[in-house]
């Protein structure tokens, strides 16, 4: 039986998991800067209306007890927030008029270890 990617209530979001469910801020930052505005806008418009439902669902559990399906769902929500300023504020895939984005380094690994949230490799 294939592994469930997401909790049953959000099965309709499973098509987005492979590309957008990313563990760690670093990976999400890279995804944002390797996506077009159109791609991010389409993703954001699907997930943003569901953020409250996702939050309510996940709050049934302690962070440290999240199942792999729940971690994937959390990462979908976090990726949606990563897209917010590009889609809503800047209307531009990157922060306009700044140094090359590769010069700005985002570190996830130390933070995730300190916070001890179960991690999941991006598929």
């Amino acid at each position, binding site marked *: 039986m294939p592994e469930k990617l997401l909790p049953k209530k959000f099965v309709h979001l499973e098509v987005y998991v492979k590309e957008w469910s990313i563990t760690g801020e670093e990976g999400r930052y890279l995804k944002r800067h390797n996506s077009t505005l159109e791609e991010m806008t389409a993703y954001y418009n699907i997930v943003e209306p569901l953020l409250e439902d996702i939050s309510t669902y996940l709050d049934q559990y302690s962070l440290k007890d999240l199942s792999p399906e729940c971690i994937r769902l959390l990462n979908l929500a976090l990726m949606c927030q990563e897209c917010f300023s590009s889609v809503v504020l800047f209307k531009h895939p990157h922060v306009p008029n700044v*140094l090359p984005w590769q010069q700005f380094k985002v570190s996830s690994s130390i*933070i995730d270890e300190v916070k001890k949230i179960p991690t999941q490799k991006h598929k």
Partner: protein
Amino acid sequence: MAIGKSMHIKVDEGDLINQHVHYSEAPFPDSDGKDAPPWDFKPVPTEPLHSQQAYEDERDKIFKKRWINIAREWEVPEPGSYIIKNIEVLGASIVVTRGTDGVIRSFHNVCPHRGNQLFDPNKQPCQGRARTVMCAFHGWTFDLEGKCLKISDEGKFYDLSKDDISLMKIHTDTWKGQIFVNLAEQPSETLEQWLGDFGKEVGHYDWDRFEVAAKWESEVNVNYKVFIDAFQETYHVSFIHLSSFTGEVEHDTDPYFNLKYMRFFGPHKALAVPGRGSPETNVRQKVIKQDGENVRHGINLDRIEDWGFDIDVVFPNFFYNMLNNQYFTHNFWPIGPNKTHWECHLYLPKTDKASDLITWEREKCLLRDAINEDLSTNEATQVSLNNGHIKQIHYSEQETALRHHYYYMEQFTK
């Protein structure tokens, strides 16, 4: 210039640490009269912003003589933890450890035998846990309290035993979870004395409510002073942050987003940034209410109504940005006169709820984007300074914090 309120507590001229200047109720006054600060208001020469000599003076007389923040307690969380910090301006590779006794210490990452690097990044991780460390050159072994446990073939040495030698210790102290070192042979003051009244005021913050949530860094071709200048004034907000934080600016009444107060505690400072809250960005800067439970200590020191956050600076290069629901720190590391390594750590309230992570992620990413905007002018500015196109800078009243840094840089490098 219109007159606001200010106060200057004058102490002995030679006592650089305890001079207090307090400007409240902007607009702030100028240099005349009994409340005049120790600095003047003339244009400031730009030579220290690009010269090799100025870099060397600051390196030798400030960075290597004063208390400098290099690490955090959460980076060495348990007995046996260590982390290596290689800091060019200190001329040192430093091992920060938490001993089995729980005490945080730091040492030069150098074997006292013949100077080999003890923790070699090619052989060991630069952060981890260990009970001992062995020099790869000749096997000398030390514990994390710095004690020598073994000198290989000890009997062949002349009047030397392992009890006579130890790792080279660096003066180390902690303040509110931050680890400071002082490379002077004998520091001229303790860390507590160095932080002085700044430490007493800001120290009341409820630090234990927070945990680290993000780390960002960059290497930028800019003098560290040019870099920090972008972070200690709000004059730029309406322009640089036009897309990210324009909702915060009251364009009719306060289009230049003036600081609400400036407090200078010797070389350190606390500056108040206004804040109203922008629905588009979901940034909420709640008013500090003086009704007991809602009072947050260590921030909004003047208890003003439209307070957003405090910019607190520990001279020369360590910044806190303090809000009531988060704080973040900046370290600006000079790598020569024209290059800086910058790192930022964001701290958010401890939580066990996914909904908090989701809510805060938007603000966190927006903050990161806004800081990226702050970096945007650095390299172009440095090119102009290096080429000598601009010989002096006129700082406005709203840029007094920049002038303050320049003043103390001069005083400490005399």
